[in-house]
């Protein structure tokens, strides 16, 4: 096998590669698509929480858009969003779209749990029902959305 072909093979199916060597190498385990998907979801939720903290702790200014850029938390949030986007795109190379979109519904629940745990927000029963309904709706939409995307 030529060097270029081997490279191609490696980038194309990491999943089988990982299975083949039993997840022996640490690097291939980190780049496992499902782990990257999980990282992406966690980073998305974390970015929302960082942004909320940043918006709450910054000094109040009428030029709030400008003063946003002096907040450490806001920048942490922005970098989390960028990181989540990269790991999302990376995961989509080998995970079926339908699975990825189904997992995106988990986002709503993770954000709700995070804002309850880290931000101390009191979530009423009514709000929990609403959040779960939205997550369920996103779950239902995953199938048509994936089909539409595959057509593109």
């Amino acid at each position: 096998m030529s060097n270029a072909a081997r490279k191609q093979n490696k980038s194309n199916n990491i999943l089988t590669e990982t299975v083949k060597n039993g997840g022996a190498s640490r690097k291939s385990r980190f780049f496992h698509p499902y782990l990257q998907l999980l990282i992406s979801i966690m980073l998305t939720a974390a970015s929302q929480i960082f942004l909320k903290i940043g918006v709450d702790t910054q000094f109040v200014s009428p030029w709030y858009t400008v003063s946003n850029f002096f907040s450490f938390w806001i920048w942490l949030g922005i970098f989390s969003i960028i990181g989540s986007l990269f790991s999302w795109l990376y995961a989509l190379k080998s995970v079926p779209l339908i699975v990825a979109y189904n997992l995106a519904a988990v986002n709503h629940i993770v954000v709700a749990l995070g804002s309850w745990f880290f931000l101390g927000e009191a979530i009423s029963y009514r709000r929990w029902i609403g959040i779960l309904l939205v997550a369920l709706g996103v779950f239902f939409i995953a199938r048509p959305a994936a089909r539409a995307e595959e057509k593109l």
Partner: protein
Amino acid sequence: MAEHSRSSAFRRKLDLGRGILAMTVSFFTWLALLRQFELSYLYPFEGLDRVLLAFAAWLILKEKMSRDLWIGLILICLGTVFVAGS
């Protein structure tokens, strides 16, 4: 041929620019909203972007709405109403 490819590349860049502009505007709007509302209250409303997207695809791109899509859209709207009332 060269002319054509250059213009399509330019158009793609323009689309990318518009997309980035829209994302920037939505980011700052989101920050302004986040200042006033709790995160657990605000985040479910983000599910509405799928509803808008589905209706835009239905009206503008004339795509068919499947049964699952309708169920999902109704569930999202219902959930948002619940959150809004909490």
